[in-house]
């Protein structure tokens, strides 16, 4: 796996600006860190948000051609998770894709990975919050703009309060919500298989166009369903034994979600007639209705979606702050993002992310179409940290300058190349407008980089002194 990674002496205990590292005195001992179950819950909880509850209906409009696309995408996601496992073992430090890109390609690429992820995280949170409001309104019916905004604010700021109380409570909330969302979904996925009727599946290609256009449409939906698989790499220093657990949590989280997605999609396709499914606004509830009858299922699945959404918002709120915190400790983001509270919470990052998400949310209810257009940038920026992580792994594999087992090298290279192609495909699938807006959003970060570097009080790149931040606990 290439050169062993060591922490330079000057990186221990101090930030790049020479200030003592912010310490978390009360919450970041071994007991205040995420174990393997909680780390896996973070991955699963962030991947499975609110989107899965509509996914089968969206795919029904394309046809069962979506199944092989989903299997292929799952293989690509597993390859990327394996890459994250290798990278996490090599650089078990917070920031994940930021740290990998920075160590492989220099400070600017590291910054751009962090910036890209940060944009994705708070922008995506606004998307989750809007969908979450829809499920809450299944019960409340607060359909005015003020009512929806008020519900959305609750969805955004409850996770903020949890995050401010420290990593222990974040992990607990994440584990509980992940179990509560995963169990009902996997129940539908497994029990539904016993109720499948072949005539329900509908045509292989339901689009009316060519098979390639159907595949392209399916890719546009499916390539994004594993977004969040990198979660545990970003909080690596909050994880017990990160060199081992980052990889284990990433792979097992993606595998669990892959099994869930594939089985659930097949089960819902097989239990809801195709025409009905393509028009459905609650495909899982329709599936349960067809299995057991009754009307309670709509309420049950709405509750499940509410839990799922708030859990995802909790996990993504953590990431919104952790990524810039890692970059800020190296002087590549404004220094305020690196400061920790006594409970170990990066307060500035949490609050700035929440304020930006809130602004987007308000904007969503003032002009839904503009909101959807602006949010397109997030589908492009999702792929950038993935691409440069896979590229970093490829870079280290081919520049190691050491004796390696050929079989292992071939396996690692194959996995890295598959992950790289998977990330590249996400960029393509995000579409022309998303790429255009995404690049503009990335360029907005350049003055931030200039400002942060200038404030650091030095000239030029620090590439000759690669530094790893010490853990939040010091």
């Amino acid at each position: 796996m290439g050169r062993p990674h060591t922490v330079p002496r000057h990186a221990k205990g101090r930030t790049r600006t020479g200030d003592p590292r912010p310490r978390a005195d009360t919450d970041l001992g071994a007991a205040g860190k995420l174990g393997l179950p909680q780390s896996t819950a973070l991955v699963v909880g962030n991947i499975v948000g609110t989107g899965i509850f509509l996914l089968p209906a969206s795919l029904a409009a394309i046809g069962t051609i979506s199944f092989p696309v989903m299997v292929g995408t799952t293989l690509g996601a597993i390859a990327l998770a394996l890459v994250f496992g290798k990278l996490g073992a090599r650089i078990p430090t917070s920031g994940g894709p930021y740290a990998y890109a920075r160590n492989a390609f220099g400070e600017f690429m590291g910054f751009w990975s962090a910036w890209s992820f940060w944009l994705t995280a708070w922008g995506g949170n606004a998307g989750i919050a809007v969908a979450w409001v829809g499920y809450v309104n299944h019960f409340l019916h607060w359909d005015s703009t003020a009512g929806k905004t008020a519900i959305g604010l609750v969805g955004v700021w409850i996770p903020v309060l949890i995050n401010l109380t420290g990593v222990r409570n974040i992990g607990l909330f994440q584990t509980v919500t992940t179990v509560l969302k995963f169990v009902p979904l996997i129940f539908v996925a497994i029990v539904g298989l016993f109720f499948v009727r072949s005539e329900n599946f509908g045509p292989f290609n339901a689009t009316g166009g060519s098979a390639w256009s159907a595949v392209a449409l399916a890719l546009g939906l499916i390539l994004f369903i594993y977004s969040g698989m990198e979660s545990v790499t970003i909080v690596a220093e909050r994880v017990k034994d990160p060199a081992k657990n980052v990889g284990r949590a990433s792979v097992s989280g993606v595998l669990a979600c892959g099994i869930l997605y594939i089985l659930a999609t097949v089960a819902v396709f097989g239990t809801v007639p195709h025409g009905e499914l393509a028009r459905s606004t609650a495909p899982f509830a329709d599936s349960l209705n067809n299995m057991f009858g009754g009307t309670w299922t709509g309420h049950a699945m709405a509750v499940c979606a509410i839990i799922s959404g708030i859990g995802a918002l909790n996990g993504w709120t953590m990431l919104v702050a952790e990524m810039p915190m890692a970059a800020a400790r190296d002087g590549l983001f404004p220094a305020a993002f690196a400061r920790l509270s006594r409970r170990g919470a990066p307060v500035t990052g949490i609050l700035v992310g929440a304020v930006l998400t809130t602004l987007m949310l308000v904007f969503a209810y003032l002009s839904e179409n503009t909101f959807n257009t602006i949010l397109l940038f997030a589908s492009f920026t999702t792929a950038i940290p993935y691409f440069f992580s896979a590229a970093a792994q490829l870079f280290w594999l081919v520049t190691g300058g050491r004796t390696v087992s050929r079989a292992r090298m071939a396996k690692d290279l194959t996995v890295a190349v598959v992950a790289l192609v998977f990330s590249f495909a996400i960029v393509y699938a995000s579409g022309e407008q998303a790429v255009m807006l995404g690049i503009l959003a990335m360029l907005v970060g350049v003055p931030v980089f200039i400002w942060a570097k200038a404030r650091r009080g030095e000239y030029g790149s620090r590439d000759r002194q690669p530094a790893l931040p010490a853990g939040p606990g010091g």
Partner: protein
Amino acid sequence: MALSRAERRTLDEIARRVAAEDPEYARRLSAFGGHEAGALGLPARRSLLPVVLVGVLLAVSFAAFAVATARRDGGEPARRAPHVLLRP
């Protein structure tokens, strides 16, 4: 990492010596940073003002481009990219 006080003193001394030995070179260099507090010190706050302004300008321009794109395309983008709300 910030420079130590001793390093700053040394650099200031070097800067003074260079300025005395080669005034023309010092004049050319001053075009890039003559208003800074020290020879190689932290930039003054006003030096960073243009960076902040251009950052704000780019962010506002980004929002304006997005709004213009949304108005031009009507509701089409949302329908073309449902994955935005599927994530995650």
